[in-house]
């Protein structure tokens, strides 16, 4: 399917995955992510791919890891409750450097919450849900077009960095239908394959940019996979130096290259009175609010995040230096606000909503008028 289409966010994520070369999906249906599994079950077999409905989300991510180790581009889709179940194996995928994509369609609340209503409160669960020091990449689309584009990007980043990448959407974007342009061809990154002698091959030796070049299962090169600390051959080790070097490399291979991840997008005047930082459906409200408030004598800029993790600290700090007031609008209790403050923008304040209702443009306008009045004279 190419050209102009009228698609739901979930459909666009699925087509994005397929355009990036995914041929394997394992998942367990869950609102509001189910359409991704449903569409994969229709499309993948016809492309020679594999769709498996697993018994739960633990098995789903395990199957995805297995497929990826065998050389396939693989993904799954879930919502908060499923993300919780996947956390142990996400840690394994980070540790064993297995590329894969997890689409997490955020719904409201903790535990099973409200199944069909939106939220943006899985931000920290995505970052720190699995135990131990690590880095993770998470991207957040705020339109159906970005559902397509950022899912393609997620696969490319997963292959490049050899790590799981999470696409964080929400129930509104997932079920929203918008016009989408699907190009004939997208830029695809395929994983590099080992070369050279089989004898003495070290699958976890850092290659270019600290990323190793492990083989697929079944190749003539031997691949040992473990969640334990391991040396460059893949043998488990309790050596402190091996452990320290491994964990640091797993973090640095991503964090040293954050400028190459999708950058935050700024829309607005050069030196606005207020900058709204937002992402996902909330960013759409912020963009509408900025347009409407212009005729009311306040200048509002919008900084829309695309990469959520690693948090783009430097880019955010640089852009926010242009405005005396910074507001972070998000449907949670301030999960990104903390990151913004940690980036040195201690003056940032939060516009937070935690009741399934989307933050409306009018709410942002009222909030800016009330809370940022001194900035506007």
């Amino acid at each position: 399917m190419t050209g102009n289409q009228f698609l739901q966010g979930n459909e666009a994520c699925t087509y994005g995955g397929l355009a990036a070369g995914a041929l394997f999906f394992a998942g367990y249906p869950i609102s509001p992510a189910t359409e991704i599994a449903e569409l994969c079950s229709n499309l993948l077999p016809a492309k020679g791919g594999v769709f498996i409905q697993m018994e739960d989300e633990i098995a789903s991510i395990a199957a995805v890891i297995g497929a990826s180790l065998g050389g396939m581009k693989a993904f799954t889709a879930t919502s908060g409750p499923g993300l919780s179940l996947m956390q142990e194996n996400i840690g394994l995928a980070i540790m064993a450097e297995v590329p894969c994509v997890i689409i997490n369609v955020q719904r409201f609340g903790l535990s099973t919450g409200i199944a069909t209503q939106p939220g943006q409160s899985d931000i920290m669960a995505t970052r720190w849900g699995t135990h131990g020091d690590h880095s993770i990449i998470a991207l957040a689309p705020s339109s159906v077009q970005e559902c397509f584009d950022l899912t393609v990007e997620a696969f490319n980043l997963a292959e490049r960095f050899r790590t799981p990448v999470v696409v964080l959407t929400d129930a509104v974007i997932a079920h929203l239908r918008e016009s989408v342009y699907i190009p004939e061809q997208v830029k695809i990154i395929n994983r590099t394959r080992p070369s050279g002698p089989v004898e003495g091959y070290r699958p976890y030796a850092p290659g270019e940019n600290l990323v190793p070049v492990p083989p697929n299962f079944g190749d003539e090169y031997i691949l040992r996979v473990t969640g334990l600390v391991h040396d460059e051959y893949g043998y488990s080790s309790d050596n402190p130096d091996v452990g320290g070097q491994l964990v640091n490399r797993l973090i640095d291979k991503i964090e040293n290259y954050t400028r190459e991840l999708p950058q935050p997008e700024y829309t607005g005047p050069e030196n606005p009175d207020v900058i709204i930082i937002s992402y996902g459906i909330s960013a759409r409200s912020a963009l509408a609010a900025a347009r409407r408030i212009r005729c009311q004598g306040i200048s509002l800029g919008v900084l829309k995040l695309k990469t959520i993790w690693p948090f783009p600290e430097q880019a955010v700090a640089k852009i926010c230096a242009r405005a005396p007031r910074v507001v972070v609008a998000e449907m949670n209790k301030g999960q990104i606000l903390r990151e913004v403050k940690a980036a040195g923008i201690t003056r940032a304040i939060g516009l937070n909503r935690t009741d399934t209702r989307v933050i409306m443009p009018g709410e942002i306008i009222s909030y800016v008028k009330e809370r940022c009045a001194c900035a506007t004279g």
Partner: protein
Amino acid sequence: MKRWQILLCGSGGQGLGLAGKILATAALYDGLYAVQSQSYGARARGGYSASGVVINNRNIYFPLIEQPNLLLVLTEEAYQKNVTPGHDVEHIIFDSDYVPLAPGQQKYGLPLARWAGELDNPKGVAILSLGVITALFGLVTPENVERAIAENIAPALLEANLRCYRKGMEVGGSEKYTFSPLKNLN
């Protein structure tokens, strides 16, 4: 053109999501900007369900319904949720068999579900309502609505749904139902 915010609401299984998709698709065929959103409960059928369509001749920055200016209401629950004191909706079309409205309100009640049932297609109530909306407000061209219906409904069910749509068009365009003053509103 003003920003049309159309909320189609009723109960799960009435085809409101599909009707919203068809309306938005027809608007896109007309060269307009259109988006469609959906909200529903956890049950497959029954329970409150709504589909929002925003249509404009300019880019749509915020894709959800803030305050509907055209409301289709098929159940009493949907009425209670969306018609609140102090929030006047410009146009309300409601199913007069299911939604009790206070007398004197300038709203438009029709036995929509009953008519769909009489056409042997009770599930066609939302499509029938689309016909009423198309005829009344001229938001989108009827040919493009029929094109969108044909693309979104299985061939075996197409005839039954086109019958519903055309019945809605006939009613919406009929002076018998005293809708004619509305026609110039957009």
